[in-house]
């Protein structure tokens, strides 16, 4: 049973397996440098960590109606991205469930570069809630110390 105070109509309409499409962007030296600077790690291998690939494609479709704050992540890393190469990400809804009255979505994104190198496969575990509704009360209370 989900949170009785929350409108779950959008969450309920989302189907496991739903295709969230794809997106291609140019991965640049500047992105690498920016990432390494803000995480204070001059040799960071995966600047795509900041790219939030699953969320990016989810929000392209659902930003006006739903938020999925990141409660967790499952990732496989295959090859570090190379600056100067374009990266294509594709995503889908991998799972959805209710736990402790909270609605969750699992969004999986796969990233490959223009040479076909598999970069990473990442799953975002998102606490799904409609836009305009604050984070669930107990989470807010727990996190608002």
């Amino acid at each position, binding site marked *: 049973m989900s949170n009785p105070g929350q409108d779950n109509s959008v969450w309920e309409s989302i189907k496991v397996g739903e295709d969230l499409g794809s997106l291609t962007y140019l991965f640049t030296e500047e992105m690498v440098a920016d990432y390494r600077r803000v995480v204070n790690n001059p040799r960071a291998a995966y600047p795509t960590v*900041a790219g939030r690939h699953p969320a990016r494609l989810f929000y392209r479709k659902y930003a006006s109606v739903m938020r999925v704050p990141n409660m967790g*992540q499952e990732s*496989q890393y295959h090859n570090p991205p190379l600056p100067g190469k374009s990266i294509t990400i594709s995503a889908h809804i991998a799972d959805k469930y209710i736990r402790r009255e909270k609605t969750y979505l699992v969004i999986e994104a796969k990233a490959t570069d223009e040479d076909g190198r598999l970069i990473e496969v990442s799953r975002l575990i998102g606490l799904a809630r409609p836009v305009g509704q604050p984070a669930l009360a107990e989470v807010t209370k727990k996190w608002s110390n």
Partner: protein
Amino acid sequence: MEQLNSGGKKEKRLLKLGDQLHPITQPVLLENMIEFEKIVWDRGVNSHTDTDAAKKDGLSKPLASGQNQMAFVHELLEKNFGDAWVYGGRISIRYIHPVYAGDKITARGAVTEISDINGKTTLTLMIWCENQDEIKTAAGTAFVGQPEVSCSW
């Protein structure tokens, strides 16, 4: 993970059950949280960058994104495992306590299992981040081969 042998050359060090990884510690700065949000995908003002936006979400102040902690975990694993992490590492992690500007986060790990399948060794690691008060902010499991000296990226 590497160490220098008697000849001053880097050599591979095999991890054993129970071994701890060399931890990494990073400060969390608001200016970096804001910049982090702009990298690759600038999604505007949100609860990771702005006090008013955070309050609308029921939070008292901006909190660092989970991906920000993930960056620290990556640093931990890159520095301890080199190419073994970068080419083939896997992780499952949950963000369990908020991280705010001004916190100091330490990422840690320990070997909990070593398996050998068809001659390929995989270490199972317990991974976590903790703040300056030793409160765990993220926890999970990673899977990776024995450390490599090479860092080819």
